[in-house]
């Protein structure tokens, strides 16, 4: 019987003939932890008597969640991380480098066919490169540092086939929100979601990363996309040319199949307080907002900044609304500067922050007050996620974010199509 991409990666990494349902011990190619999870991992590593990392060249520590540090407690965490990274010779990403997941994707440490793990649930993002990438906890990160290996249950794969051309102002974020709404918050628990179809083949790497990033919001273990020319071109663009990886065999077994056509898709929005509470933007239009966040490991990439800047150019943010723009990495920030996007954001009244997680995790740079409403391009709208438990979070695309920033209320970006609204 043929194998899916995931089964092939686990077979390679465990040196066994692995199929869905098998429990395997696999060698990991890339491991990442950040300032929200590294402290517990380091503590567990020390408690286990760790004196040496099995292969430090595979390990990265990233400061991005509270960066620069907002509290003395976190300054101490950062200090411990820096000393750990220097002592053991791991990769280390300092304050201002960017969001961990974007950094791993740009690092060349994750390639098509890699097995990557991170002490963060959105590690599934790297599946857009054709890698198997999944989130783990801190204690098992410590076990991985010691042994270079972890146990995994090889997941079943659900096929998601996306067909059709996206209408103007409808972005990959709208596609994945639509899918999350259809599948539900636990509809893909423990599964790998493999995206296929003509829409995916035409989609750029930025959009693909948006799709795989949000697969965990359906409980999935990872999202995965077969590598192609777009993947190889992206790897060349980051100075790491590579061709290879795996594709699912024709006769491989998929657990389920979801097929959607996006030709008539409208802009989508996830309403409070769960990511699968998805509606069309038009159905909640007019809701006043206090804050708009453009950034995160979901939507802080160049295509996202371009889509928002295109709408904001020559216009101003509504009085009383705060717009926070956080490029996902320094590399993206520099390119956005060259293209004049940052100038557009500043001139229209946005605040541009340093690369990192921004306000997504509720730690700094835009924490919400009780009763406030935020429209965010990030991936979670749980109660209390970005600050007060009495605040509301709506999740939407960068285009919807820009339109909402100008109008001061939730707005369908299609009103800005072709200069309909000057």
């Amino acid at each position, binding site marked *: 019987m043929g194998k899916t991409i995931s089964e092939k990666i686990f077979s390679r990494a465990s040196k066994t003939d692995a199929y869905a349902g098998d429990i395997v011990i696999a060698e990991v190619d890339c491991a990442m932890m950040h300032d929200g999870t590294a402290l517990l991992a380091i503590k567990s590593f020390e408690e286990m008597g760790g004196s040496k990392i099995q292969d430090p060249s595979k390990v990265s520590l990233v400061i991005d969640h509270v960066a620069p540090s907002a509290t003395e407690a976190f300054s101490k965490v950062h200090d411990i991380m820096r000393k750990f990274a220097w002592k053991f010779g791991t990769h280390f990403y300092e304050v201002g480098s960017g969001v961990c997941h974007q950094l791993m994707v740009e690092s060349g440490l994750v390639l098509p066919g890699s097995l990557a793990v991170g002490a963060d649930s959105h590690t599934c993002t790297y599946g857009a490169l054709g890698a198997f990438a999944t989130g783990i906890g801190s204690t098992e990160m410590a076990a991985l540092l010691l042994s270079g290996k972890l146990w995994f249950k090889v997941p079943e794969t659900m096929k998601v086939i996306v067909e059709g051309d996206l209408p103007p102002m409808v972005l990959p974020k709208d596609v994945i929100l639509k899918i999350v709404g259809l599948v539900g918050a636990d509809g893909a628990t423990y599964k790998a979601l493999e995206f296929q179809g003509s829409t995916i083949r035409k989609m750029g790497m930025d959009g693909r990363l948006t799709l795989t990033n949000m697969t965990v919001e359906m409980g999935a273990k990872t999202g995965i996309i077969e590598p192609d020319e777009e993947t190889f071109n992206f790897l060349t663009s980051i100075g790491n040319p590579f061709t290879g990886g795996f594709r699912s065999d024709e006769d491989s077994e998929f657990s389920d199949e979801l097929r959607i056509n996006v030709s008539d898709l409208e802009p989508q929005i996830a309403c409070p307080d769960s990511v699968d509470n998805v509606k069309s933007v038009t159905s909640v239009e007019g809701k006043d907002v206090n804050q708009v966040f453009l950034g995160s490991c979901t939507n802080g990439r160049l295509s996202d900044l371009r889509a928002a800047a295109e709408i904001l150019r020559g216009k101003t943010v509504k009085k009383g609304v705060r717009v926070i723009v956080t490029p996902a990495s320094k590399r993206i920030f520099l390119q956005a500067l060259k293209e004049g996007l940052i100038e557009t954001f500043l001139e229209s009244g946005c605040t541009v922050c340093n690369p990192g997680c921004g306000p997504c995790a509720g730690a700094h740079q835009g924490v919400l007050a009780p009763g406030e409403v935020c429209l965010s391009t990030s991936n979670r709208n749980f109660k*209390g996620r970005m600050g007060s438990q009495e605040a509301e979070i709506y999740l939407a695309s960068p285009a919807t974010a820009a339109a909402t920033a100008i109008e001061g209320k939730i707005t369908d970006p299609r009103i800005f199509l072709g200069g309909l609204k000057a």
Partner: protein
Amino acid sequence: MKIRGRVWKFGDNVNTDLIIAGKYKLSITDLDELSKHAMEALMPDFALKVKKGDLIVAGRNFGCGSSREQAPLVLKHLGVGAVVAKSFARIFFRNSINLGLPLIELEYVDEIDDGDILEIDSAEGYVNNLSKDKLYTAKVMPPEILKILSEGGLVSYVKKHGKLPWQ
């Protein structure tokens, strides 16, 4: 690993931000202090009420959301003996095993009420509702995983055996 305790009942999709909010996880590093905020959005005084050996019983997809190990950690720190739910999110599931917090998947949680007294055993695979005199059979975990749980988690395992289960 027989555990007997009082039930604290919750619903579906109890996410990691509800178990312990990111704003606390990213500002408090002291575990005693952090644990005071466990489940606070759902039950403001949970940390004060819960006693050692008490059980959490919940619906589908318990622990969905972030990979934060602080979620099972604060529950264990407060003395929660085990979590019984219709289903668990995968990272929460792994983290709980690795920390030695027993989990039981049970379809019939709707028949269990807040305040019931249960006796459970994750290795034997049963849930006995002593308040309602009703016995349920539950799924038993694979031996590879039970081995980690029965030693009290990965750190305890390494301390006892001097190596990881797969080394």
